[in-house]
């Protein structure tokens, strides 16, 4: 048995996580995005094997409410483990409803909340003071956060990012109206500075946070870096979530102090316990090991495919590739009936929102799923044997647009699991690196 240490870092982490989740849900709701993203569209892009996960109509609001209540419970530590399981399930269900909205940080939240289901954290604030726990659990969370940064850093070591400063060279000049920074962001050397600085930051920050002597400085960097990304890019709550997550690297002394402050907030009395790590440790350790292995290995699955990752996006999601691509596209679908000479050109906006259309046009799995949907739609409208063709162009990181999907291929006849290189045009360039 290891020497137990104060559980306060975990309690503060739990509090911060719950609070951030609650704020995220309130923000999402207040912007009207539940309606806009999940209720208005007629069609949703599903994840493979999760096609059964669909929005629940008006009950989708209830789903968000459940996640919000669970986030409240997590914040105060009331029925923590149950609340965590409910939060994980409801949040993950929400994310699986439509992959149009996929963001790395949503995946971060889903996988972190699953991990947290297996990490014991004492209830409340005052009641949690003085509680001891196996230091393993804190280290698991530190490793989890460190891997996210480090992998995000590795992914930046590619020729577009380092040698062309792309896509930052496209995004930053558009931020001309930001006070003070606006003019600087037009400079080429600033784009390179951000690119190299960003890669160095992601690769180094886990170590700087871990090493006690650089920790305070590293945390200051975390705050500066994430506030800057918040100002420059539309990434919502992610910067705040990462800032709060980075607190886990601090030792129990600081967290004890935070907990002392939190303890002044009165909660209904909860049972005080002195040690929490004694129970059910074996199955917890097994689950945690499996989750960490997935966390380490899943992002590397792109190595199994030899096409250009940025072009095919096979293995691109769930691998901490953040802000690496500016992809713009245009996809015009034609449905032909093989049994008659009927032919129709599809107005995408009849079925998709502007956001869905934008995401669809540059991602092969979206194109294929949408083509299958169109085939069904036209079959219902009397096409006996609908064949779906697409005239599509994509521009990647400031390259001239080139044809994306092979226009000769009937997408309705392509199986959803068919390798993309059989129906996608080859990429006319090479991107070196991870």
């Amino acid at each position, binding site marked *: 048995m290891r020497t137990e240490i104060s559980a306060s870092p975990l309690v503060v982490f739990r509090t911060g996580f719950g609070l951030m989740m609650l704020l995220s849900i309130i923000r999402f709701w207040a912007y009207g995005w539940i309606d806009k993203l999940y209720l208005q569209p007629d069609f949703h892009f599903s994840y493979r094997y999760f096609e059964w996960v669909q929005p629940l109509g008006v009950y989708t609001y209830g789903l968000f409410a459940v996640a919000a209540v669970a986030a409240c419970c997590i914040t105060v530590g009331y029925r923590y483990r149950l609340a965590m399981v409910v939060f994980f399930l409801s949040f993950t269900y929400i994310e699986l409803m439509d992959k149009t909205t996929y963001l790395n940080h949503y995946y971060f939240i889903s996988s972190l909340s699953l991990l947290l289901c297996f990490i014991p954290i004492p209830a409340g604030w005052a009641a949690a003071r003085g509680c001891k726990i196996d230091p393993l659990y804190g280290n698991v969370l530190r490793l989890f956060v460190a891997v996210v940064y480090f992998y995000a850093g590795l992914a930046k070591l590619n020729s577009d990012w380092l040698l062309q400063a792309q896509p930052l060279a496209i995004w930053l000049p*558009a931020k001309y109206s930001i006070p003070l920074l606006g003019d600087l962001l037009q400079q080429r050397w600033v784009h390179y500075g951000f690119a190299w600085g960003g890669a160095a930051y992601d690769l180094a920050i886990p170590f700087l946070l871990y090493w006690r002597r650089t920790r305070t400085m590293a945390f200051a960097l975390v705050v500066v870096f994430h506030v800057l990304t918040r100002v420059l890019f539309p990434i919502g709550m992610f910067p705040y979530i990462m800032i709060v997550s980075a607190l886990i690297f601090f030792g129990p002394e600081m967290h004890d102090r935070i907990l002392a402050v939190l303890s002044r907030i009165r909660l209904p009395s909860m049972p005080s316990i002195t040690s929490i790590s004694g129970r059910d440790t074996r199955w917890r350790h097994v689950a945690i090991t499996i989750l960490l292995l997935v966390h380490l290995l899943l992002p590397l699955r792109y190595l199994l495919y030899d096409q250009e990752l940025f072009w095919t996006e096979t293995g691109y999601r769930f691998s901490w590739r953040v802000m690496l691509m500016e992809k713009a596209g245009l996809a015009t679908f034609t449905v032909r009936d093989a049994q008659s000479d009927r032919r129709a050109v599809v107005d995408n906006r009849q079925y998709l929102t502007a956001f869905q259309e934008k995401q669809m046009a540059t991602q092969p799995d979206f194109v294929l799923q949408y083509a299958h949907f169109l085939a069904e739609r036209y079959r219902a409208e009397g096409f006996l044997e609908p064949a779906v063709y697409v005239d599509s162009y994509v521009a990647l990181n400031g390259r001239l647009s080139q044809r994306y999907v092979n226009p000769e291929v009937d997408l309705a006849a392509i199986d959803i699991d068919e390798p993309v290189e059989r129906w996608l045009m080859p990429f006319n360039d090479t991107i070196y690196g991870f």
Partner: protein
Amino acid sequence: MYRLLYLLPLLLLACEPEPAEVDTASFDRGKMLTFWADQIIVPAYQDFTAAARTLDASVNAYATAPEPTALATVRTDFATAYLSWQRLSPFMVGPGQQLRLREQLNVYPTDSSRLFAQSDADLTLPSNTDIQGFPALDLLLFGTGDPAQHVEQLQRLTDRILYLATEAEDAWTTTYRATYVANSGNSATASVDRTVNSFVQWYERNLRAGKVGIPAGVFGNGPLPDRAEALYSGDLSRALFLEGLDAASNFFDAELGLATYLDALGVRRDGDLLSTRIRAQFREARTQAASLDRDFATQVTTDNGGMLQLYDALQRNVILLKVDMLQALSINVDFVDADGD
């Protein structure tokens, strides 16, 4: 030693600046918006309102004395106003969009049976967009045996056009111009993003599809001559198209236009300036259109191949404008969290 790490961010900022290709810092989007408002959009409104007023007056004169010469004047003024509309149509942001000018002025083909059966229809209703505006005037002036039989309806329709034009121009000059110029940021609701999005959408839907693709049958089976613009006047459809194409290329090439903006950002694709590539496509479309019949309805019936070639020339610029240019200018489509995943 570790204290030196505090200097890391400073080091990054102190990197030796490369000589910039073009001084993009000096490119002032606020100035560009002022130029768009004062030199392009508001003048287009003024010209159009004047043309609509002239048309309204000549229709009134024709109503008082339905002579053949008066009718000839009405027809000329109709053509002038319709052409003038083409130069305004690409810029439906703000009041133009709120007043639904494009829908109320130029939805075609017009529904001829409803136009005659419901001559007193409420023109403000969205369901009645296809029995008013220029397409309805086109039918009444050129597609009926005697336009004099429809003078009251002609008056109602031209009054409506004049009313809408005046309202939109007033709104632009009195209040909206200031808002438009001040909203110089970068978001889906900022003026640059709105204007460019609306311009590209107009190019794709109204110019490429509406005037050329649909009559050429690109979206269905075979040519549809009755979908041509200005169907009844017969010799106006190519002129209307060319006017729209000129509006597009003039806006692109204006002193502070999109080409200047792209060049200021140093946007090159495969060695060439993107602006040069786009300009060349506008030229190609114009050359292609020059060889076509003045009446697109005739063109698609006699030789649809030429019309399809024009469509292809226009389509190549849809790709350059909508994919390459929107990417290079980082134009936002929608407000949602997204991080380029």
